């Protein structure tokens, strides 16, 4: 084979507490579409960020056309011929397609330096023609559908004359029809001599677009396979096949009486007739991929988003929940997916822990600081929060410890029902196990727990029952031990 366009050797990157990339190798040839697969947190995004220049590598070497390069920043990456198409679109809605494609690089008139509109339009048309798509380049981006926006973004990358394009989950926002057009476009793009790295968590997509695939797991490269040797079964095994037994300290729990029953919960267009029951001491797993409606469900249950239809019963009594305050009073606690939504970073541990139950710590409107501090101390000990002092600001704690403070908040408010949305995302393995232990303790203490997760091993090993969610509906239900990882993935895929 000829010289690879891009060669990566031993790429390494650590964040505090996480080894995000552990000596990863990869090569990319001309006119190749190279799939990069892996679970959440496998290191795909970090890999792409290093190549596109938004994150610096710790170690390893990168060669482009055989020459070693040190990618310093996104501009530098672009000069080297690497373009990135982001998951979150980075277009300016109030500008036209043409203006967006040449954002910041508009062709100028010779006199006065004004923008040369005819040339701008012509060149934008040219860039879109290369993709084999027709979009009115004078249209405002805000009037376009999500698929057309994606194409505009890709046209922008192409117009920079890049030789390597990185796609980060490009199809996650597209409809089925748009996705077909998108795949077609990828092939057209390849024909123009461009090489592509394609990150996706949709296994079914890989055979449609990729020539070879590389699987990452926990920051390590598992293997690179040509597409014809990589069927879905093999890939799933490569993605999830790890020794997970003792990582999940799950104890048998006795199921108590019903604490929560949700009937027919609906938000038009987003959540469809969701039903579930939850018992004391039970851990109910909700598995689904990004965009399946898991977080929307949690938000609806907690009174953040208004529900259109449906009834919620807590301990057999119907409750109306129209604000988080109502939810807290009804005995719910909600650990958000984004830790930033749960904590006051600039404040210390005690105020954060007592925030939802502050009234209990007040006398005549004044806060009893000693009680508050003692309570916080208790949780710091119980949950094993590592901190040099009680009055430590949250921003100086590690991710795992921040998560424990967030959990302590809901323990302190004496929640009977805890909704945990991706409780272990972004924290290292050691802290993960501690969080799992805490979840166990909580369920043994009689709390009902809804564990929302997109990590297969987590759901399978921690939950007593699993509901699979897809497109705003529960599509399958399994009892503990009934389902394998493959079963869960299939139930998600089957519905697609």
């Amino acid at each position, binding site marked *: 084979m000829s010289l690879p366009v891009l060669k990566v050797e031993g790429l390494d990157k650590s964040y505090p507490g996480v080894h995000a990339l552990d000596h990863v190798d990869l090569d990319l040839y001309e006119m190749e579409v190279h799939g990069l697969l892996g679970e959440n947190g496998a290191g795909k995004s970090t890999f792409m960020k290093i190549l596109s220049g938004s994150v610096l590598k710790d170690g390893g070497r990168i060669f482009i056309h055989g020459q070693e390069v040190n990618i310093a920043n996104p501009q530098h990456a672009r000069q080297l011929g690497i373009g990135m198409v982001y998951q979150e679109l980075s277009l300016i809605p109030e500008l036209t397609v043409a203006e967006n494609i040449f954002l910041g690089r508009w062709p100028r008139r010779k006199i006065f330096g004004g923008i040369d509109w005819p040339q701008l339009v012509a060149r934008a048309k040219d860039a879109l023609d290369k993709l084999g798509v027709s979009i009115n380049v004078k249209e405002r981006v805000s009037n376009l559908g999500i698929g057309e926006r994606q194409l505009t973004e890709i046209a922008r990358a192409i117009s920079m004359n890049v030789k390597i394009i990185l796609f980060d989950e490009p199809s996650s926002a597209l409809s089925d029809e748009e996705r077909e057009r998108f795949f077609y476009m990828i092939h057209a793009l390849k024909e123009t001599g461009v090489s592509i790295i394609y990150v996706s968590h949709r296994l079914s997509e890989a055979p449609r677009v990729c020539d070879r695939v590389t699987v990452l797991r926990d920051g390590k490269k598992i293997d690179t396979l040509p597409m014809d040797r990589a069927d879905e079964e093999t890939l799933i095994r490569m993605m999830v096949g790890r020794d997970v037994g003792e990582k999940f300290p799950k104890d048998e729990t006795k199921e108590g009486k019903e604490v929560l029953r949700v009937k027919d919960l609906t938000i038009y267009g987003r959540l469809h007739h969701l039903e579930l029951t939850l018992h004391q001491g039970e851990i109910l797993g909700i598995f689904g991929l990004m965009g399946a409606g898991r977080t929307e469900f949690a938000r609806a249950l*907690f009174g953040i988003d208004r529900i259109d239809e449906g009834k919620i019963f807590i301990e057999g009594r119907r409750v109306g929940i129209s604000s988080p305050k109502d939810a807290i009073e009804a005995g719910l606690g909600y650990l958000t997916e984004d830790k*930033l939504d749960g*904590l*006051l970073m*600039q404040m210390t541990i005690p*105020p954060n822990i007592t925030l939802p139950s*502050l009234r209990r710590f007040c006398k005549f*409107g*004044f806060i009893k600081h000693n009680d508050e501090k003692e309570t916080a101390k208790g949780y710091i000990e119980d949950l094993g929060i590592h901190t040099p002092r009680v009055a430590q600001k949250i921003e100086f704690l590690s991710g795992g410890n921040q998560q424990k403070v967030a959990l302590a908040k809901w323990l302190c408010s004496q929640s009977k029902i805890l909704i945990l949305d991706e409780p272990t995302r972004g924290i290292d393995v050691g802290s993960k196990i501690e969080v799992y232990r805490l979840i166990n303790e909580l369920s043994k203490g009689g709390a009902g727990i809804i564990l929302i997760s997109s990590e297969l091993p987590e759901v399978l090993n921690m939950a007593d029952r699993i509901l699979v969610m897809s497109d705003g509906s529960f599509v399958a239900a399994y009892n503990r031990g009934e389902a394998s990882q493959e079963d869960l993935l299939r139930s998600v895929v089957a519905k697609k």
Partner: protein
Amino acid sequence: MDKQSSRPKVFSLEWLKSQVATRQQRARLLIKTIIVAMGGVFCYAVLIAPGFLTIGNGINMAQRMPSIIIVAVAQTLVIIGAGIDLSVGAVMAFCGSLTAVAFCYWGIPVWVAILLGLLSGVTIGSITGLIITKGRIPDFIATLGMMVTVRGIALILTKGLPVPSHFTVVRLRAYLPPQVIWLGSGRILGIPASLIIAIAIVVVGWLVLNHTALGRSIFAIGGNKPAAILSGINFDFTKIKIYAISGLLCALAGIILIGRMNSANALMAGEINLQSIAAVIIGGTNLFGGQGGVIGSLFGAGVLSVLSNILNLHNVQDFAQDVFQGVVIIGVVIIDQLRRRYGR
């Protein structure tokens, strides 16, 4: 980057170089130098100012400070709650004018007139809060609108004339009531009464912020709005309370101001918006909310008052004083931002 294993000797040239090796260290050094230099210039100006350390000058300053201290406390609460109140000066002018008009022209008893002034402040503040929360308008815009509106109503109320007007004083012998004048310029044991009130407000403000559920809620909505709402805090109601308190304190400051000037007019307290915000920021409160306190704002108000006083003593003309103040405010904010970015 490779870690260096050998550490150079302290105070050697290598050590000095290592202290300014990274961008962050250089920035920190620069920040410290600027702070020390500014402090030095300030102290020098104070010391050489003719007549700064006289009792007369002290009393003069002590009587000018209370309004700005009280408004700075109000502004502190607002800014910690991630808002900003541009209507403080207008509310002061309106409430002061209303009290004066109620007493002088409507013949309302003095204590009722004062109460009316204070109540009008609470009402205006609550309306501002309602506009922000129910109308979903940024604080900046809502208070900017209120600033113009309230100032306009004050002008209608006073017909653009001082209260009591010259005519009223001469013909009807109607003055501002002695109680109001005492609030503005009376003394208790030689200390201006208004200063004692202002200090009491600072103490109450400190208590509210640091020892009550309301204070905690203010920090929470300013520090992280989604987290506050998720923890069951009523965002709208907290916001309305903040602006109602701000209105009340501005009304009080307005009444003290008319007492000191022995006259009310709809155009007074024009500079207090900027001054109160500057005092809060000089005092170390985060302009974007969630961090800070009233003690710092008291200090900030003090710095601004001393600054304006020494410029007067140095006979710097009024227009140039504005330039000075503007530069100081911008400088302080820049340093504050640099410190947040590069650490202390």
